[in-house]
């Protein structure tokens, strides 16, 4: 509680330090934060010494271990990829979901199912809008879930919608779907840091995480696309497996390959300080399949990590009701995943140390965090 500060500190420590991931966890609580072209800005300061904005932000000092112990089974924790109860390769059985989805459509199928089954009564999602200019949205009908499906490499501050929904206190079983930064913020919210104001955080029922390597600068991506094709024609954007080194853009007319060399300069700076590839704080996390069998085999399939009993329950229903198709999983898959995840942690800690120049200052991370075990030594 004494670690929690206020908005002026949030601006100083996160917004002005280029740490802000624009998740929106600080927005929708008051009138002092706004957003434009993918950035979150503070319009004025409320001047309070402590605030929910600071407490919920995933880039202020976070005791990850404490959060893990509160919401997950201690025995399930793996330092490489977080709380772990199972890994699956799946895709949505319904082909119409897969024509629009980023990979296998498993997220869309699972969220839709969770809503139909009453596990959640609403969902905070990122609406793809075709691939450019995605927006946060609250979905309360299962048939609306599919509308959000699709690519999203710009990160809209969708948690603003979550905060507004919690304030309203109308939806009591909210599902939050987001990138690792957003899911961490959702759990910090769930931990109810203020005794006198719980922000109705218990209304968050389930969290769905999305694997993420990095997000792209809002205006930067627009400019890159504009230089190659009319933005309104974009249907799908994807980063292919690393051996191809391309960003694939599918348009209504065809397919464009953008060399990753053009993309690396527009990776958001704040993403370089993120240690979480698999959204370690969630009930269930979904990403693109990456096996050793190659892209032709993996394209159109998802990897799914289950982290809690609730996540297990949902996946069980999905299997029974044939909402998802399942594939065999090889042991190499698991190793490959752990290695990729650990790589992101290594890069992030290196970048943070370069930024602070001080081995004891890991910004929002705790050097003692078991999740960073073995990394700091190799980073220095």
């Amino acid at each position, binding site marked *: 509680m004494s670690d929690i500060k206020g908005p002026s500190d949030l601006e100083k420590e996160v917004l002005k330090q280029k740490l802000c991931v624009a998740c929106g966890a600080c927005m929708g*609580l*008051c*009138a*002092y934060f*706004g*957003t*434009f072209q993918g*950035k979150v*800005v*503070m*319009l*004025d300061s*409320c*001047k*309070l010494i*402590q*605030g*929910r*904005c600071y407490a919920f932000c995933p880039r202020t000092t976070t005791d990850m271990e404490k959060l893990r112990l509160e919401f997950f089974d201690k025995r399930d924790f793996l330092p490489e990829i977080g709380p772990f109860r199972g890994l699956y390769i799946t895709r949505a059985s319904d082909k119409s979901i897969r024509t629009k989805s980023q990979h296998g459509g498993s997220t869309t199928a699972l969220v839709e199912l969770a809503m139909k089954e009453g596990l959640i009564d609403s969902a905070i999602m990122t609406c793809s809008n075709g691939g450019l200019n995605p927006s946060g949205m609250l979905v309360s009908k299962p048939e609306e879930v599919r509308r959000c499906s699709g690519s999203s490499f710009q990160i809209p501050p969708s948690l603003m919608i979550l905060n507004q929904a919690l304030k309203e206190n109308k939806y009591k079983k909210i599902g939050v779907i987001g990138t690792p930064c957003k899911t961490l913020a959702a759990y910090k919210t769930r931990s109810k840091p*203020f005794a006198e*104001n719980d922000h109705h955080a218990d209304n968050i029922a389930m969290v769905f995480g999305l694997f993420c390597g990095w997000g792209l600068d809002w205006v930067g991506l627009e400019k890159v696309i504009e230089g190659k094709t009319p933005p309104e024609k974009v249907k799908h954007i994807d980063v292919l497996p690393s051996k191809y080194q391309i960003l694939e853009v599918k348009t209504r007319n065809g397919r464009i390959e953008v060399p990753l060399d053009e993309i690396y300069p527009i990776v958001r700076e704040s993403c370089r300080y993120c240690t979480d590839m698999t959204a370690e704080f969630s009930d269930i996390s979904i990403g693109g399949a990456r096996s050793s069998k190659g892209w032709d085999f993996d394209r159109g399939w998802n990897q799914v990590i289950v982290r809690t009993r609730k996540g297990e329950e949902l996946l069980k229903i999905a299997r029974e009701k044939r909402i998802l198709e399942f594939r065999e999983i090889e042991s190499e898959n698991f190793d490959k995943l752990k290695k990729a995840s650990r790589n992101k942690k290594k890069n992030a800690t290196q970048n943070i140390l370069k930024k602070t120049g001080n081995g004891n200052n890991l910004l929002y991370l705790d050097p003692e965090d078991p999740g960073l075990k073995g990394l700091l030594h190799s980073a220095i």
Partner: protein
Amino acid sequence: MSIVNLDAPGRTVLMMGNEATARGALEAGVMVATAYPGTPSSEIIGSLAEVAKEREIYVEWSVNEKVALEVAAAASMAGLRAITAMKQNGLNVACDYLFTLGLTGVKGGIVLVVCDDPASHSSSNEEDTRAFARMGDFPLLEPTTFQEAKDMTIYALELSEELRTVVILRGVTRISHARGNVKLGELPKDHRKPYFDTSSPFTYSPMVQKHSLLHEKLNKAKERFETSPFNSYEGPEKPDLMVIASGTGIFYSREAVTLMGLEDQVGILKLGTTWPLPDRFLGKHLARTQKIMFVEEVDPFLESNVKEVWADLAPILEIGPRTFYGKRSGHIPIVGELTTDRVIEGLKKALDEVYEPCDPNYSRRAKEVTKEFVSDRALGFCPGCPHRASYWAIKNALKLDDREGFLTPDIGCYALARTASGFFLSKTGGAMGSGTGLACGFGKLQEFGFDQSVISVCGDSTFFHAVMPALVNAQYNKSNFVMCILDNSATAMTGFQPHPGVGTSAMGDPAPILDIEAICRAMGAKVEVKDPFDLKDTTETITRLFQDREGVKVLILKRKCALLKAKGEKPPYKIHIALENCVGQDCGCNQLCTRIFRCPGIIWDTETKKAKVDEVICVGCGVCTDICPNSAIIKEET
């Protein structure tokens, strides 16, 4: 029935200094009166406008002071008497033509009345315009009493007609806006017929000879001034110290001398004709005593000029060395407005006198007690003012744009962008039109790597006065900035005088409306018009305009001034606070409405610790409803 027009010669009435000047103009037969509104001069032409039709004269609110002077000069060249009035900044605008007018000469009497604003209560600088008289070679008169404000105006017009040059009458705020007794004279019955004699043109060449001629006129004025009733001495024959003062300096000096009981030691030489100085008259009085103290505002004008006279005359009249006290010696402050206390301090030092107005302990306690009764109040926008809404949108847009953008405002009510009421947005200050002029400059720095958003702000009246050329400059030189025109259908700050955009003339007749939007478009600028009360749309528009880095983008934020609206319409809404929604000082708000938005219509209730509507002040504009993050401010249509 206006007091300025009262047909009661011989009656003494209570009049404002500006009204006395206007009355003097009428008594002297002025037929053309022009001005641009400028505090503290506005009531001169304002009161003449009210009686213009009755007196069958022409009164005009000109678009700026240069044109005002030109219009008055034309009347004078056609043989009519004319008056033009302005504040110090106005004279700065008019002086280009003024100096040429000195060389071309005039025909009918013309008086240029300038009202300075010491301490800058309502100006963008502190300036002493008497220097213009010396610089331009014009006779200068300074009234001390309200009677003199009238009588000197009449004399100025007579002198101007005799010498065929402009005469300057210079006052300050305390003469313009205070009131005193004035004995009225006769109002003329006849009017002259204007005629421009083409065989006697008003040209300025041959230049050097005309300049010489101007000096001859000045010398003639000097001769008149040697015996002027406006100059006089009061006090002992041989005082220990003689105060030389003009204008308000006389009253402050008299009061100081009386309070200190120095009537037998200190004499006061009153000067009403302060350029050119009557040196024989001066020499006579300079001989009285060795100690001379100057009391005037703002600059050491008399101080320097009298020293020159003394330097020339001393050997001739055998006046010995003098000790001069004043602004140069530090006895009277060289900046700020005069007060009796300042003169008292000066006299104390000069005469080594001990004087306390009252017991220092009592003085201290009195100050503490009175402080409790009157709280410090900052300048701020009226409740319902559209500028508050405009600045709210601009403030948020600058933050959303996130490039350390800034605002360059102009002169008007909206200059309060420098205060808390204007969210401290103002980052530059300037004269009329300078906000846009400066933005033109910032807008050309892109090629050197400058990428900060710049938004200039001006008003509708300011637009016509000086901003139009700046917009031409911006278009022609392709300068990149947002130009925001706050169109509230008024020249509000100076008292709601009409301007070319509102459809009425000074004399109350319908006038063509010059459409600001059409003018900007005609210049080829990109133009958008929005309602500042639509905060969301206005904020989004400005944020979007900041992303366009090519050329000037004109944004007109159009909504009537709140005071003007209140005169004609009932409040649109009744506002109250839904206490159960008010988050108050907790996380989620902390008094956004009273701490940052600051409309005086909302106050903080320290007992309930919630916001509260001050029903006396609130004008029911409804903007606050949109800024509350918790829908705690409710508006109901009336």
